[in-house]
């Protein structure tokens, strides 16, 4: 149970005590919030008093009347914005003129609560505001974590990019110095290996581009309704040239509403990586089963293959960046070691989980579960 501080700035004592009374017993839950939110209400009768309380108490939510005896509500709003305080502001006002509304909105007020309001109306607004505040804070946290991850990532990256360069350079020098003789035939395997290393490097660069798309900042405006059926079949089409070579058979099973609100880039990353892995690490003539299910609460994706599988140790390290499983079976499969770490980050951005079950030589099943964000809430937040 977490508590948010709400400051009401209004010169009418009735409004202030009304808000206190209504919010005292109110709490907000949200499917993917870790805990419920309750509210502590602080009161100020003037803008000046409000600013004093803001500086001292740092409220999370500010309910602000515009028409105040001294300084106006909009000026309090300006003060909050100048100080870059992390406070969500809603204006409560009986006669919001258009220019006050525009000014307030451009200064970051996110909601207008018309006076007089019923307890229901206040609760609905507070609920929206709480969710908005929650999303904002999560985003900020992710941004800080993102920076740390990026640093570690870059240090390993320079290693991973240099290794193929070293290998290719080595082969070229052998050719330059005619170390294996004068016939081009002698260099066939050196050339093959160089080309394979180049392909690996190209994959790494493609994955890096994906990685930069996952910028750890969910942008609400990019959220849209995604048709999961379409997403799955696009991913299958993308991987089909390779699947045909390996004679892989696809089974798809999509149940439920089949729609989810998300950034399509993110879901493309999840689908493409899991499905192309299922082909890459499959056996000749194998099967890939893609199941998508979703209800009002969560979205489930599972991608199962009939491939080489992994032992429990290998499963454990699978989602770390650059952790490629190295053994005889994977020797000739090129991969950057980034794909699944990216998938995991994306899934976690949506507060979801990914796990894997695998049996060596039988195959692996990857399962993703993501709590569903209610369409109406997202629309309200946009």
């Amino acid at each position, binding site marked *: 149970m977490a508590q948010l501080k709400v400051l009401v700035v209004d010169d009418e004592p009735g409004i202030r005590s009304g808000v206190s009374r209504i919010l005292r017993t109110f709490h907000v839950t949200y499917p993917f919030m870790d805990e419920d939110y309750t509210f502590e209400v602080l009161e100020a009768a003037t803008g000046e008093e409000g600013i004093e309380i803001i500086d001292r108490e740092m409220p999370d939510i500010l309910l602000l009347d515009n028409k105040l005896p001294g300084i106006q509500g909009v000026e309090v709003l300006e003060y909050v914005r100048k100080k870059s305080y992390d406070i969500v502001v809603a204006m409560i006002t009986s006669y919001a003129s258009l220019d006050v509304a525009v000014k307030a909105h451009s200064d970051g007020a996110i909601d207008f609560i018309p006076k007089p309001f019923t307890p229901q109306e206040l609760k609905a607004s507070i609920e929206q505001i709480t969710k908005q505040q929650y999303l904002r804070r999560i985003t900020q946290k992710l941004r800080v974590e993102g920076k740390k991850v990026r640093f570690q990532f*870059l*240090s*390993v990256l*320079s*290693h991973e990019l*240099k*290794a193929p*360069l*070293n*290998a*290719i*350079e*080595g*082969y070229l020098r*052998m050719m330059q110095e005619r*170390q294996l003789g004068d016939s081009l035939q002698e260099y066939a395997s050196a050339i093959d*290996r160089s080309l394979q*290393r180049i392909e690996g490097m190209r994959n790494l660069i493609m994955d890096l581009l994906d990685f930069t798309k996952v910028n750890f900042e969910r942008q609400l405006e990019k959220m849209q309704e995604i048709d999961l059926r379409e997403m799955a079949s696009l991913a299958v089409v993308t991987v089909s040239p390779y699947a045909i070579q390996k004679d892989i058979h696809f089974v798809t099973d999509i149940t439920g509403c089949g729609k989810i609100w998300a950034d399509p880039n993110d879901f493309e990353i999840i689908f493409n990586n899991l499905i192309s892995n299922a082909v890459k690490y499959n056996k000749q003539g194998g099967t890939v089963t893609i199941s998508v299910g979703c209800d009002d609460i969560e979205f489930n994706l599972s991608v199962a293959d009939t491939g080489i599988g992994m032992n429990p140790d290998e499963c454990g390290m699978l989602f770390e960046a650059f952790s490629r499983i*190295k053994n005889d079976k994977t*020797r000739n499969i090129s991969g950057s070691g980034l794909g699944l770490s990216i998938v995991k980050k994306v899934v976690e951005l949506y507060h979801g989980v990914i796990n894997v079950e695998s049996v060596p030589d039988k195959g692996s099943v990857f399962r993703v579960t993501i709590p569903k964000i209610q369409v109406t809430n997202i629309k309200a937040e946009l």
Partner: protein
Amino acid sequence: MNSKKYTVLVADDDPDYLFQVAYHLRKCGYEVMAVESQAEAEHVFSKMRPDIAVFDLMMESDDSGFILCYKLKRLYPGVPVILATAVARETGVTFGISSEQERDWIRADLYLEKGVRPEQLDQAIKQLLKI
């Protein structure tokens, strides 16, 4: 090089790099045992004593090279070890074996940047073997 053939144990999980190093060292007249993992390297030196070893730092784990150094030196304190890695200065991982303290825990005799020319590696091996 004198008439005795020296045995070099080379461990590197990059198959191409391993192939190239092994190729060059053989050309320089060494007997080469080339392995692709920490586990294989441990297996090899549990069975025989190489004259010198060249280990990659990052294999199964980030510090495979260090572990191999430690284990090899415990078995054969006299066998020189070269640690080769592409983890370079720009990553912020700086370590060397110039100070007494570093020598104490990094039990390598020489630390080489990957991508060194084969002649340099040969040179380094000759110095450590005092030949």
